[in-house]
């Protein structure tokens, strides 16, 4: 019952399949292919996640699917429950977790929260300097005039998130960040009340969202990817997910 590891074999297999793989980093691609050591393990049980989120939750070469490794277990659990119950809408996720009980979703969340895979190198910078400057200003200091707090005030000085419910932002690609902020603004995505992220998203213009996403995508990997502990800092807005 110990299937052999495919990880190395698939790199050569990948190279032989014409087209598809050639332009992608070989590592990223093979990390998104099912592989495990023991059938009776969490590693085998979460194979349902790997083609989008990578073997260890590090993300894949696809820009939309987020890195989930190392995000606080409470945040990941809240998302899994929301996908299961249909309060967060993304059809492929809603379908996959529809019939999974709370205890198991918690275990899946803890599994990915404890992973520490390396960060993928940032994509080449596409934004202009002015956009990057605006993004940097919002991330580090917010915009007092528009009532926007700094991202770092809640998502951690190193942007690695905060226990128990606030996700890290490092390693997220612009497509994903912009899509989530937009969904929050139009009311398609929610968090527990009081929904602090909705207050932030409704104050951000499209240009602001692009700037924040562009800046975040260029951040270097943190030396310690773990989320900050809860309640070390006073947060500028009340957030239901921290209660």
């Amino acid at each position: 019952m110990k299937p052999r590891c495919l990880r190395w074999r698939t790199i050569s297999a990948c190279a032989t399949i014409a087209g598809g793989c050639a332009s992608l980093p070989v590592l990223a691609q093979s990390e998104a292919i099912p592989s495990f050591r023991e059938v009776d393990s969490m590693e085998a049980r979460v194979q349902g996640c790997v083609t989008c989120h990578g073997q260890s939750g590090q993300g894949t070469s696809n820009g939309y699917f987020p890195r989930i490794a190392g995000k606080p277990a409470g945040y990941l659990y809240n998302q899994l429950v929301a996908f299961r119950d249909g309060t967060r809408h993304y059809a492929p996720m809603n379908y996959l977790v529809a019939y999974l009980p709370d205890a198991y979703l918690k275990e899946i969340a803890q599994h990915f929260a404890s992973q520490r895979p390396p960060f993928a190198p940032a994509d080449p910078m596409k934004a202009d300097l002015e956009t990057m400057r605006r993004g940097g200003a919002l991330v580090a200091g917010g915009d007092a005039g528009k009532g926007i707090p700094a991202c770092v005030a809640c998502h951690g000085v190193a942007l690695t998130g905060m226990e128990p419910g606030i996700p890290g932002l490092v390693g997220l690609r612009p497509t994903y960040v912009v899509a989530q902020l937009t969904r929050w603004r139009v009311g398609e995505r929610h968090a527990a009340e009081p929904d602090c992220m909705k207050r932030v998203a409704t104050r951000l213009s499209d240009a602001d969202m692009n700037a924040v996403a562009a800046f975040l995508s260029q951040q270097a990997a943190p030396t310690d990817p773990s989320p900050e502990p809860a309640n070390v800092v006073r947060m500028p807005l009340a957030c239901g997910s921290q209660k």
Partner: protein
Amino acid sequence: MRQPEVTVMKLAFKILLALVVLAVAGAAVLWWLRPSALPEPGRASTAPKDATTEVINRGEYLARAGDCVACHTEATGKPFAGGRAMPTPFGALFVPNITPDDETGIGRWTPDDFYRMMHTGVSKDGTLLYPAMPFASYTKVTRADSDAIFAYLMSVTPVRQQNRPHELKFPFNNRELLIGWRTLYFKEGEFIPDPKQNAEWNRGAYLVQGLGHCAMCHTAINALGGSSESKAFEGGMIPNQNWYAPSLTSNREAGLGNWEIQEIADLLQVGVSHRGTTYGPMAEVVYNSLQYLSDEDVKAMAVYLRALPQRDSEPPPTSQARLVSPSVMETGRKIYSTQCAMCHGEEGKGHPPSFPPLAGNQSITMASPVNSIRMVLNGGYAPGTRKNPRPHGMPPFSHILDDEEAAAVVTYIRVAWDNSGTPVDASQISELRKLLPE
């Protein structure tokens, strides 16, 4: 000279004691780490119960068997408060509140009203129910069981929530049409045990034909939303869900003639078995209903299902229909080897029950390739059940494989290892992609 001996004895005793303590601690840790049982509704205590408690407990169990909660509850709504939209080919139905609220629920119903509704499909106020409510199956439920379910529903928390009117298209919004439908497709009558069969078979038949309402999906529905008794359990597409409910009578589909009773019972109650795994709508049935049934009842259903007469509505595919071009087969084999073999094995044997076998799996080889295509595109998790709370899952490949590649790998699993399926082409993949969540 005796001193050292005593010391050695003492030391040996201490070591023994330490080992015993460790073993006890180990056992305690194992006990503490054991997977906690999910709450067993209505059966928490073994103390003798009064008659009312007994009836309500039995009603709760039977309501589980009938899976009332699945339709009568919204995803984040209160149990049985209704409101869930049920898309049908004729428009959307909104499922009613069946909590005992006097104004908006069934609080003012009597056991007679409830039995009439279950037995004849006529509501308390005389309106004819749409057959999305499986009264064509529930008509088989005994009066005693109907009364128990009613007693249980009266005992749940009343929720004040107005029923939402249905949004059916013309002419289906006219309930008078149901008179015609009922004449064609509805046969009223409680289950009559077959004296030629034993009690177990009859119990299984009662559950499958009655509360289980299996025919709602496993008997094909025609353009009028009816199903014909002569085609009972022969399978069909589930309207609006785009899953194919396989025939339970054909050995080429999910016909169970060559399954062990335990394998059928596992599929129903655990959600996984050594022969196959439930996904999609069947996973929902297992999750909400079948996992809560007793081992005896599930076994009775398995006994009945296995004994269904075997008949195939279509002849097996000809060798001509099974021809696959070598290049498609080679593409399929390569993809399989890279993406699928890790879990399902190079020979398609899988790691049952965690990862299902594909070789000899009727749900792969049956005439309709819909479910296989869906699984390759969207993946899926077996339901998390009391006997399998941590199921394994399959990832989606819709973003990794294009239509040609997905068609090649589905073709491969349908014909490799002596599987008796037929090839699929890229247009079938692209058609389903349009309908499926992506």
